[in-house]
């Protein structure tokens, strides 16, 4: 973040709301669009009070037409607007996949830079609240292989605010993932306008024995695991990726080269997800420094079941990270 230092304790919902408010103040070309985001303030209350302040035109309710919502954003961006869409649940991105992947993400390239898809798609993702198979998914894996798209995934209120403002400022299409389980989590949030640069990871906790790379809800889990293991004499470094595409490989690689051990934690299924991408990159770039294979923490290779008991079995938590770190620590030192 830039310069602001005065902070205030706030939930992630409020931090995002603030970022939207500040963005609307700063950019006359910005508008909000989505289902019931206006007077109602959105399904999770993220846009609350913005309709009252900015009105129908700039806080625009839509019918249940996800493809048209994103298409509208792309078109508006083509003529210099900065639309910010809310897709109520990330699971619904399947309906506007074409618009995101073939339209927004390719626009700038295929028309030789003549248009900018300066739009943000905010959406609530992740499991853990009994939402079942269509309201719980971690969808970053759907979009990882899509050049031209930026994927942002904050883990705490301060980053959420700074990253969202950076996303709004960005001239690229940004998929902004808001983990539902983090909405009510609290943290110190700087007041006023600031941006947290896209494409940069944060070292959420410094350590020397093992690096845990995590995103969104896995970050607090990893920090909890690190805290638990600190008592056992294991020094865990937690890297919060923050931007998933294009991601900050430098910070990840530097950390793993230093610690020689890597755990990658990711809520989505393991096959073909962010965990694979990170594991591949670390394995390739830290080949000579790694004491042992990258240890993975992933969701099960299943949809998300409804029942609490079953959902709990397919989603990773602090325990899984703790055992992954322990496993990594059994690897013999290999001298960095």
């Amino acid at each position, binding site marked *: 973040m830039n310069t602001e230092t005065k902070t205030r304790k706030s939930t992630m919902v409020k931090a995002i709301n603030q970022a939207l408010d500040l963005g609307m103040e700063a950019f006359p070309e910005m508008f909000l669009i989505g289902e019931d985001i206006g*007077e109602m303030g959105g399904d999770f209350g993220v846009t609350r009070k913005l309709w009252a302040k900015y009105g129908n035109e700039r806080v625009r309710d839509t019918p249940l037409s996800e493809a048209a919502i994103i298409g509208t954003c792309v078109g508006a961006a083509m003529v210099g607007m900065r639309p910010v869409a809310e897709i109520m649940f990330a699971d619904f991105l399947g309906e506007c996949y074409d618009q995101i992947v073939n339209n927004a993400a390719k626009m700038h390239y295929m028309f030789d830079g003549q248009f900018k898809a300066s739009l943000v798609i905010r959406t609530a993702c992740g499991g853990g609240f009994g939402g079942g*198979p269509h309201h719980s998914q971690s969808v970053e894996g759907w979009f990882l292989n899509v050049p031209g798209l930026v994927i942002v995934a904050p883990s705490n209120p301060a980053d959420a605010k700074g990253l969202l403002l950076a996303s709004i400022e960005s001239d690229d299409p940004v998929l902004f993932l808001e983990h539902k389980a983090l909405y009510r989590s609290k943290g110190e949030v700087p007041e006023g306008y600031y941006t947290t640069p896209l494409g940069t990871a944060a070292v959420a906790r410094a350590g020397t024995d093992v690096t845990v790379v995590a995103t969104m809800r896995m970050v607090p889990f990893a920090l909890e695991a690190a805290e638990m293991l600190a008592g056992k004499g294991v020094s865990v470094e937690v890297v919060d990726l923050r931007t998933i595409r294009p991601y900050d490989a430098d910070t990840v690689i530097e950390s793993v080269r230093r610690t020689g051990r890597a755990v990658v934690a990711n809520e989505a299924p393991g096959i073909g997800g962010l965990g694979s991408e990170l594991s591949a990159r670390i394995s390739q770039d830290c080949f000579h420094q790694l004491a042992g294979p990258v240890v993975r923490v992933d969701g099960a290779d299943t949809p998300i079941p*409804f*029942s*609490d*008991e079953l959902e709990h079995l397919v989603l990773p938590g602090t325990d899984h990270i703790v055992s992954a770190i322990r496993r990594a620590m059994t690897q013999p030192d290999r001298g960095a």
Partner: protein
Amino acid sequence: MDESTLSSLYSDMWLIRAFEQGLESEFEKGNVPGMLHTGLGQEATQAALAANLEATDAYFPDHRCHGINALAQQRHRGDGRRIMAELFGRSTGVCSGKGGSLHSADPRAGNYGDNAIEGSYMATVLGVALAAKMRGEPKVACAIIGDGTVGRGEFHESLNMSAIWELPTLYACVNNGYAIFTPVGKGHASANIIDLARGYGFPCEQVDGNDIEAAHAAVLRACDHIRGGKGPYFLEFMTWRWQGLFTGEFRPPDEVRYWREEHDAILMAGARLKEMGWTDDDLEKVEGEARDIIESWIEFAKESPPPDPAKATADVYAGFEVSPS
């Protein structure tokens, strides 16, 4: 409508209301995971549909169709309580707790399952209808959707393909006036959904969804048409949902009063029965029976064990195993 039909539908409506009210109070107590949408206020539409759909038909319920699901499950399988158990996420649920409120299915009851991506089964229903047509089965393939869901492009892809292929598809559009918070006339070019459906050239009818006699007759007409091989049919039920937002009521008091007090499906049907000679006691008895049944279903759900942990990784593929993580 004759008294025995009306009486049976009256019981069905009470079962729905008792189901949803029982569920709502369990939800408030924290006993039901996830989200809750109820069919309260839409009992006549739901009872009319349930009464005309056979076990060999196929319907796709939406998020407010617990009542239809329960009636179908009870009538065709004798175990309506398994719908309740599913909502509690229990092993005795129709999907062993894997689906929940938004994904309950039992094809042997004609219930082909909700898809919580609103409108997506507008496409799926085509395949069930097409298969029936190819096989010469007299199946009605019914998609039950809300007014808001009409915003999805797949609504139109579906109507168009049903039309060109003359499929046995029943579109049951439940126009309860709102999509979450958005009034139907704000979300659509017309507040009358049939205006958006008429272009496809098959019969479209708008009906009072709180008038059980009208609703039942309309569904019967539509099913006859479809079973007669005459292709798709579109019904729009004008009704209203009791449930406001999770945060409370947002609709004008007059509107609330009208629908809950003047134009309530159960009150209106009760009045008709009284015209036919029923007493208040007779009516109350029906309500009481429904509430007893639902109480026992809730009991059953609560006492049922949680799903077998093996279910978590079972059935991802039909042909491959997934190992527990």
